[in-house]
């Protein structure tokens, strides 16, 4: 890269791959939101110095290999069972940072019961919920969060609310429970929201470190492949279509000063 006029200028590296992540190319599609969330998690592991006591529980979904990218211990969970596996780990290691990472099929379809009950127990874990309104890994089937009218492999004529119901809002669902400490919905469709997501994830991790209880961060995230559009168009779709169904913001924060 030639920048000849400025050759004398000292350069300072101000942004780079987080140390807590291996220098491995991630397997996600171009423009996939999972990558962004991973990066934020890596950055926070750096900032909070928690990689060495983190245990990341990966879902079955596109993020099935998530633990390969972090310099931390990692665990698989059967499809939907991340909260149960994370519970098992956390009960054994109450001082470690146990992070559950899940997609919408994993967390809100097959794993509905585990999600609700871990939240209801107020397990002191941090759950990161990547909502991309589709089953990415299996090739684009309807998710519980797919929008009304959305065409997928298993809703080829568009999601019909009368037949299969409406998108489920995880944050609002969990907000009916007493135990959860912190619930927020964010998005990674543009720079501003990526940074907001980072703040939310940080809060979620801090809550756990400080033993305040269960934190849940839902991240609206693009799946260009599953939606059959370009990454740009996908992020636009998040902003224009998803964010209205899934309002961004803090849903609950027991730690917020009133």
């Amino acid at each position, binding site marked *: 890269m030639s920048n000849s006029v400025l050759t004398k200028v000292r350069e300072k590296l101000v942004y780079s791959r987080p140390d807590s992540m291996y220098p491995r190319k991630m397997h996600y599609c171009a423009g996939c939101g999972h990558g962004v969330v991973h990066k934020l998690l890596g950055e926070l592991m750096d900032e909070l110095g928690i990689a060495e006591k983190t245990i990341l529980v990966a879902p079955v979904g596109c993020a099935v290999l998530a*633990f390969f990218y972090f310099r931390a211990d990692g665990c698989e969970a059967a499809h939907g069972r991340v909260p149960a596996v994370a519970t098992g780990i956390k009960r054994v290691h109450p001082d470690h940072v146990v992070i559950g990472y899940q997609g919408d099929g994993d967390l809100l379809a097959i794993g509905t019961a*585990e999600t609700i009950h871990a939240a209801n127990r107020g397990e002191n874990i941090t759950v990161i919920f990547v909502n991309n309104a589709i089953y990415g890994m299996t090739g684009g089937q309807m998710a519980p969060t797919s929008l009304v009218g959305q065409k997928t492999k298993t809703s080829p004529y568009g999601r019909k609310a009368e037949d299969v119901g409406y998108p489920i809002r995880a944050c609002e669902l969990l907000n009916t429970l007493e135990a959860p400490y912190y619930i927020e919905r964010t998005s990674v469709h543009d720079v501003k929201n990526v940074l907001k997501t980072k703040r939310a994830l940080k809060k979620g991790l801090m809550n756990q470190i400080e033993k305040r209880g269960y934190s849940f961060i839902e991240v609206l995230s693009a799946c260009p492949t599953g939606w059959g559009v370009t990454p740009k168009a996908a992020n636009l779709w998040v902003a224009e279509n998803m964010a209205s169904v899934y309002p961004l913001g803090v849903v609950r924060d027991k730690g917020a000063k009133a």
Partner: protein
Amino acid sequence: MTATAEKILMKGNEAIGEAAVIAGCRYFFGYPITPQNEVPAYMAMRLPQVGGTFLQAESELAAINMVFGAAAAGARAMTSSSSPGISLKQEGISYLSGAELPAVVVNMMRGGPGLGNIAGSQGDYFQSTRGGGHGDYRHIVLAPASVQELADLTLLAFDLADQYRIVVLVLGDGYLGQMSEPLVLPQPSGKQFDKSGWALTGAKVREQHLVYSLLLSPEDALEKLNLRLQEKYRVIEKNETRHETYNTEDAEYLLVGFGMCARILRGAVVSLARAGVKAGLFRPITLWPFPYRELAAAARGRKKILVVEMNAGQMVEDVRLAVADSSPVDFYGRMGGMIPEVEAIVERVRGYVE
């Protein structure tokens, strides 16, 4: 059984719980189901007393996956259920097996199929020994026949699980779980197992540990795992096959049964001896690995082998595999929670004599 140790009268299900506590198990995840409810109830009472964690999961699925987490974290963990609940755990057991995690699962079998009833049964032999879950895995299956053995084999189960990084199934039935018998509490084995090479304890000062069974490449990864598992299974077959015989020396008839049936067959052997009929008992204690070789040897030259089960005929297949064409194999089974009576067996065997 040490001569000095005090005998207590204990219910089978509670004996399992206390043995697990003695084995150092501090994590129990379960979901209620009759006829094993005294296991979780006992653990709910007992584990908090020893600093352990009892957690009633939202379902059997959650329970087995909590066990997955706790086992991955390096702890001795267990779950317990009965037939329908064990069916629900099959996916999780396959995952535990694929990830080579040690765990103890108790199945106090009840009458099936479907909802069936809550009486004792042995209808899950196939499921237990052939892997009700998907893929080529095996778990060690221990089949106790008394309250004492429920305790002793539960204790052993934890050691075997850790030694081989495998799931160990303690396979009882509703009758065993509900009955009370004299029990001498077992002593801890004192064996230590080093899990520091793989358990999830935080990647400080070491490489990351990962617990998973996703192995995308068939050739380089998943087939290799399977070959390693099969190798391990051969070692277990070699070292851990357990059985018991009674009165077999000059027996003309060999009775074969496990668990509850084995004790009834023992009674039949005694009755038959009184009636002058030479019968002996062969009792597999490990259902997997099944004592094929030992049974083949024990079966040689007998006039007839009678297999008795509380099902429609499941272990009898293993007996046939062991015995092949060497002796005729007969089967007597009761189903749906029925239990064979000594008299019926005696009658059957006397029928051979005439």
